[in-house]
């Protein structure tokens, strides 16, 4: 059903253009307000920053100082990259083993991973944060292991689906040629799995980068904060919020994501489709 020309094609283009403008408007609004004096933000969110209201990059300076934004950015990046690499490596190996061995242990493990996918985080948050703390996993490195454990379900599920579609004869002929098992995995299986590895990387990266509650409960917050945690900290307890610094931090949090999106859009869309497998 593709490439069929609808009636009133031009009108639809105009309609979707308006809708797209409406779609990006909230982000545009945040950018405008990030240049305004904080007193003007709550009272008059829709005005442009002119005259007294315009403060240039003051909000950014204050935002960076109060949240230690660049450190949070670095920790978030480290945690995301570390977790994603760990998840990809470990779960792809695990999924291959599960499919090829396929004995009772493999089946049990697979069922457990499926079960993992429907358990909401609130179910484990108290015990998980306690356990992570006891094991000394309250650092960014420890958090990567926690992400591997808690997020294994979806990755294993997608990878087992992929491995099932790879003909075993390829691996057997490599085996007859005398290749070792790890070598078969890394040189025969991984190249075939590459597209889905990229998809899972995107899905997991979106999750870990944006996650709030797990790092908030697990990390030693005196030393490490992720971007989401740092922004939530700006809100603080009961005091008034510095809306100027808040807007600046929101912009600084959004811009890298949009740059990443523009560069990797093709993979991101594929990743979403790979995640849309039936549970």
């Amino acid at each position, binding site marked *: 059903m593709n490439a069929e*020309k609808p009636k009133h094609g031009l009108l639809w*283009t105009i309609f979707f253009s308006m809708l797209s403008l409406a779609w990006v408007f909230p982000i545009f609004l945040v950018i405008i307000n990030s240049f305004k004096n904080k007193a003007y933000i709550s009272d008059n969110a829709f005005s442009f920053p002119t005259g007294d209201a315009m403060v240039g990059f003051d909000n950014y300076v204050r935002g960076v100082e109060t949240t230690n934004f660049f450190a949070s950015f670095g920790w978030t990046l480290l945690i995301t990259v570390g977790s994603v690499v760990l998840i990809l490596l470990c779960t792809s190996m695990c999924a291959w083993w599960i499919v090829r061995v396929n004995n009772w242990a493999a089946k049990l493990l697979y069922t457990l991973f499926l079960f993992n996918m429907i358990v909401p985080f609130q179910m484990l948050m108290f015990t998980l944060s306690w356990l992570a703390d006891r094991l000394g996993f309250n650092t960014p490195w420890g958090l990567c292991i926690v992400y591997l454990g808690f997020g294994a379900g979806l990755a294993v599920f997608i990878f087992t689906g992929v491995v099932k579609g790879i003909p075993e004869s390829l691996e057997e002929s490599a085996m007859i040629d005398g290749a070792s098992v790890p070598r078969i995995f890394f040189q025969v299986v991984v190249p075939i799995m590459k597209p889905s590895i990229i998809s899972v990387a995107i899905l997991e990266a979106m999750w870990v980068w944006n996650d709030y509650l797990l790092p908030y409960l697990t990390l030693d917050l005196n030393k490490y904060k992720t971007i989401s945690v740092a922004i939530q900290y700006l809100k603080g307890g009961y005091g008034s919020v510095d809306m100027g610094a808040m807007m600046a931090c929101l912009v600084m949090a959004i811009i890298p994501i949009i740059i990443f999106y523009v560069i990797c859009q093709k993979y991101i869309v594929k990743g979403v489709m790979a995640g849309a497998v039936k549970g």
Partner: protein
Amino acid sequence: MISMAGKAIRRWWALFVLPTFIAFIIGFVVPFIYGVYLSFCNFTTVTDAEWVGFSNYGKALQDKTFLHALLFSTLLTIVTTIIINVVAFAIAYMLTKSIRGSNLFRSVFFMPNLIGGIILGYIWMLLLNGVLAHWERSLTYDQKYGFWGLVILVCWQQIGYMMIIYIAGMQSLPTDVLEAASVDGASGTQTMFRIIIPLMMPSITVCSFLTITNGFKLYDQNLALTNGAPSRMSEGLALNITNTFYGRVGYEGVGQAKAVLFFILVAIVSLLQNKLTTSKEVNA
């Protein structure tokens, strides 16, 4: 029946399975089992747990804020699931036709998904409070503002995601069936309801599953947008449970019991939904 490759691979379990397995035990199995156990205990930290049977569950079910949060989450899930799926389906349907600029529109609609829940919450707090300021109101003035604010936010975030899944489904629809329908003189409405929607049921199953579970699990957006204000009236289930754990000393057991109930609810709803929509799937 185990293949030759399988036999050789099995011996390598320590390398291939053990790392994931250990992390899974730490990150899921132990916390889950211990969580279920603790829901039957009184405790303030994990180590001073004392068995109390079902009393936590009794307290949880008598807690008015919990029942209100259950209602809030259920309504939110129903409303957002319907809006997101209808709108995403409609947009996907139009954007698979050759409209000028349709790739750009797809990119724009998808974009909010990449932004984290906390950040989304504050973006919409700014916008919605800005709008409500004209009537000298704010999001926390009444629970209905918080509710509809959250509906708008969640729709804005998820429509693009579901649109992508629907577009993928529509692009793989069999052209011969659609051509046969138009040769036989089926009207647009007939083609939509008799052919396209039945053939799209697998995508609809996935999207409604995702929107329903997302609706119940919603936490970050809820926290950032209203944090339950006014007086816990705009609190969803996930936020209510977290606040019970960390907001009231001595109520950790009740929080854990609520969490178990929450898990059971999410599991039942997603299984039922999956059965229901899967049963409507057809083969072309």
